[in-house]
C-alpha cells in the first residue's frame, strides 16, 4: 500500500514547508509481510537533509547504541541509493556514502553530499537486520524522495567574445568566451561551432582538450584554434586544410544548449561573424606602442595604444606600471577599441617623475606572436637555448 510520509513535525519551519512543494516523498513496505510500525522520514531541516528510520522500540534503539557497527553493518539495516534512471542500473548501484547515528528515538543517516535536484533517491529500511531481533518476518520499508528540478527561466548569456574585432588574422590562435554566469563543464566542444560563409560547419577547427580551459570561476572558456589547422606558408596537412582562410567570412556559434552551473540552458544562442585577413607572422614590438602619460596630482588614466589588437587576457594580466622608486602602482587596467587601447587608473593620484610600463615578454598578439618572438620558429634559424620570463620596460614621464 502506498502511503505518503509525514515529512514534517509540528516544530517544522516555514522553510521546510516551502521545500515540500513539488516533492515526491512516498514510503511503503516492499512486500506484503507483517504490517510494520516503522517508517522512513526525509528530514530537510538539516543541511544536507537526513534520512531517518522511526518507530523503533527502546530495546532495539539501546542495542543499536551499544553496538559497534561499521558502515557496512549499518547499510544492511538502512541504506539510501541515488537513482540513475534505469531499473537494472539502480539495482546494482552501491549505497550512498554518509554517517549513521542513533538519536531522538530514531536512526539517522546523514549523506556525505547534498541531495541533488532531479535525482530520485530511494531509502530502504530492513527491520529483519535489527540486532538480535525477532523482526525477521518484518517487510522492508521503502521510501522514494526527489527534490524538484530547477524550474526558473534561463538567464545566462554569452556576455562577450574576445578578440572583439570583426576582422581577425588567418593565423588567429584563440577565442575567449565570457559568460554572464558560472557554467558547467563537459561537452563544450559539441556546443561551439565555426561556420564558413556558405554556412557549412568547419570540421574540427578547435583544439579539443578534455580539460576544457575554464577560469576558476567557470565564467570564461578559452578556445584554442587547433595549431595543426592554422595555415602556414608550407601547407601542413593536405587533406584537411586550414580552419580559417584569408578573404573569407566565418561565424562562431555558441549553442543555447550550454548549461550554466544551475543546470539551465542559455537564454539564447550566440553568433559572432568576422572576416579573415592576411596572417600575422611578425613578433610584437613595444617600439610601436604609444603612451599618453597622465598628469601628476590626478587619477587620470594612463593610456597606451597598440598598432594591432593584443590578446585580451594577457594584456590585462602582464602589463603593469612602476613608479619612480620602482614599486608597482596599484590600480585597475582595462582594454578598449577592440583591444588596441590599454588604460590604467591608479588607486592613488599620480606623482611626478619617471615611470615605467613593465610588460612581460609572454604577451601575445592575436596570432600568438610574443615580444621579439614569432609564434612559429623557422627551423633554418638556430633555436634559442634559453627562455626567461623577462620584463620589457618603456619609460614615460608624469609631469
Amino acid at each position, binding site marked *: 500500500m502506498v502511503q505518503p510520509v509525514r515529512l514534517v513535525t509540528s516544530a517544522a519551519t516555514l522553510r521546510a514547508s516551502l521545500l515540500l512543494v513539488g516533492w515526491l516523498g512516498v514510503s511503503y513496505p516492499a512486500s506484503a509481510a507483517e504490517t510494520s510500525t516503522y517508517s522512513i522520514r526525509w528530514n530537510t531541516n538539516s543541511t544536507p537533509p537526513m534520512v531517518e528510520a522511526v518507530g523503533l522500540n527502546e530495546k532495539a534503539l539501546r542495542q543499536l547504541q551499544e553496538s559497534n557497527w561499521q558502515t557496512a553493518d549499518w547499510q544492511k539495516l538502512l541504506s539510501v541509493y541515488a537513482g540513475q534512471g534505469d531499473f537494472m542500473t539502480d539495482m546494482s548501484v552501491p549505497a550512498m556514502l554518509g554517517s549513521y547515528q542513533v538519536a531522538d528515538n530514531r536512526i539517522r543517516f546523514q549523506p556525505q553530499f547534498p541531495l541533488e535536484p532531479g535525482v530520485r533517491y530511494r531509502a530502504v529500511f530492513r527491520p529483519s537486520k535489527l540486532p538480535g531481533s525477532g523482526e525477521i518476518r518484518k517487510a522492508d520499508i521503502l521510501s522514494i524522495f526527489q527534490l524538484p528540478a530547477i524550474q526558473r527561466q534561463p538567464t545566462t548569456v554569452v556576455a562577450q567574445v574576445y578578440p572583439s574585432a570583426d576582422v581577425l588574422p588567418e593565423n588567429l590562435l584563440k577565442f575567449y568566451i565570457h559568460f554572464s554566469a558560472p557554467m558547467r563543464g563537459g561537452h563544450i566542444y559539441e556546443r561551439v561551432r565555426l561556420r564558413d560563409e556558405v554556412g557549412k560547419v568547419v570540421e574540427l577547427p578547435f583544439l579539443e582538450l578534455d580539460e576544457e580551459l575554464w577560469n576558476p570561476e567557470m565564467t570564461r572558456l578559452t578556445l584554442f584554434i587547433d595549431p595543426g589547422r592554422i595555415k*602556414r606558408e608550407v601547407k601542413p596537412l593536405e587533406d584537411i586544410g586550414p580552419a580559417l582562410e584569408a578573404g573569407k567570412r566565418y561565424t562562431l556559434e555558441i549553442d543555447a544548449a550550454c548549461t550554466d552551473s544551475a543546470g539551465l540552458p542559455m537564454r539564447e544562442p550566440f553568433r559572432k561573424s568576422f572576416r579573415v585577413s592576411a596572417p600575422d607572422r611578425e613578433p610584437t614590438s613595444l617600439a610601436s606602442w604609444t603612451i599618453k602619460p597622465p598628469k601628476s596630482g590626478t587619477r587620470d588614466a594612463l593610456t597606451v595604444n597598440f598598432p594591432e589588437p593584443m590578446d585580451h587576457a594577457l594584456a590585462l594580466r602582464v602589463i603593469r606600471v612602476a613608479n619612480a622608486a620602482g614599486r608597482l602602482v596599484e590600480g585597475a587596467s582595462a582594454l578598449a577599441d577592440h583591444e588596441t587601447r590599454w588604460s590604467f587608473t591608479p588607486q592613488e593620484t599620480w606623482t611626478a617623475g619617471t615611470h615605467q610600463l613593465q610588460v612581460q615578454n609572454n604577451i601575445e598578439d592575436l596570432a600568438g606572436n610574443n615580444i621579439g618572438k614569432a609564434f612559429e620558429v623557422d627551423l633554418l634559424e638556430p633555436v634559442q637555448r634559453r627562455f626567461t620570463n623577462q620584463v620589457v620596460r618603456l619609460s614615460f614621464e608624469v609631469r
Partner: protein
Amino acid sequence: MKPTTRSLVVALIALSCLALHAANWTQGMKEGKAEFKSISQLAFGPEGILIVADTKAAAITAIATGDTTPAKETKALKVEGINQKIAGLLGTSAEQLVINDMVVNPISRSAYLAVSRGRGPDAVPVLVRVKAGGELEAVSLDKVKFTRGELPDAPVDGVVGEGNRQSNPRQESITDIAFFQDRILIAGLSNEEFASTLRAIPFPFEKVAGGTSVEIYHGAHGKFETRSPVRTFVPFNVGNEPSLIAAYTCTPLVQFPIKELSPGAKIKGKTIAELGNRNRPLDMIVYQKDGKDYLLLANSSRGIMKISTDNIEKAESITTKVADKQGQSYETIASWTGVDQLDKLDAGHALVVRKGEGNALNLESMALP
C-alpha cells in the same frame, strides 16, 4: 598509465635509486587531512605513494596510501557502469560525474579514479578506489600521510609589489603526471599563453621550490616548429638514454632526453612519429611482449595504437611536411573501442575505462595486444 620503468636498464637504475631512497620516500610527510580543490591527474610512485595533481590549486600532493599489500594474482575485472556506480556512491547522477583519470597501484593492483562530483565551479573532488574484486570505495583523505607542494608561476624578474589587483583568471591545467626514478614529471597547459610546459620536481619534496619549466618544440608541420601542448607522456629508455615519449595534441609523438629537463632550458624534441590528424591522444602506457617494447596509445578518434619501438634509437626526426602518418610503425587495435582511460594492470593486461551501453562507462581488464 605511467609505469615507472621501461626496460631492464631503467629497472636497474630505478632499483639502485630505490635502494638509496628506500627509507626516505615518506620524508617530510605529515599526517592530517589532505585537501583538494580538484583531483585532475594521478600517478603512482614507489611504495604505494599516490601523486595527485590539483589543477585548480596548482598543486601536487603525494599521499602514502598504505595500500602496499602485493596482489596475489590478477583476476579479470569488469565493472559495468563504473560512472553510474560511483555517481550512486556519491549521491548524484552519472551526468554530474566526471572521471578525470584512472591509475593502477602496481603493488596491490587496485584502481584509483580521480573524480569530480559536479561539473560547475563548486564541483567536489573525490578519490575512488576499485579493489581487485571490483568493490568500490571512496578513499578517505581525512587522516593520511602526505606532502603537498604548490606549483609557482614562472617568476617574473624585477617585478615588486601588487600592481593591478584584479582577480587572476589564469589557470594551468595539468594534462599528465608521471613518476620517474626520483622525480615527478608534470605536463601543463595554460588557459592564456599557448605553450607547453614540463616540470621536473625532485621527490620526496617538502615544498616545490621554483620547479623546472621547459618549452618543447616539435617539427611536424613542415618548415616551422610550433609550440603545442603535451597531452600524455611516458618515461621510456631509448637505447641507454632515459627519455620521455610525449604525445602532442595534434598528434606527433616526440622524444626528448630527460636529462635536458633543467630549469629554463628550451628543449627541441625529436618527432619520431606523426600519427595522423583529426585525432587527440588520450593516454599512453609502455609494455613488453615477446621480448619487445611497445607503446600503447589511446586516441579520441583513431582507436588504440600499438606502436613499435624497434630501432627507435636510430629514428630520424621528422622535419618535413607530413601528409598523414610517418615514422614509427603502428597497428590499430580495432577491438579496443571507446577507450578513455588506460593503465597497465600487470605484465599481460591493461585496465581501461571505456564506453559501454548508453551513457555507461565500464572499467575493464584487457589482455595486452
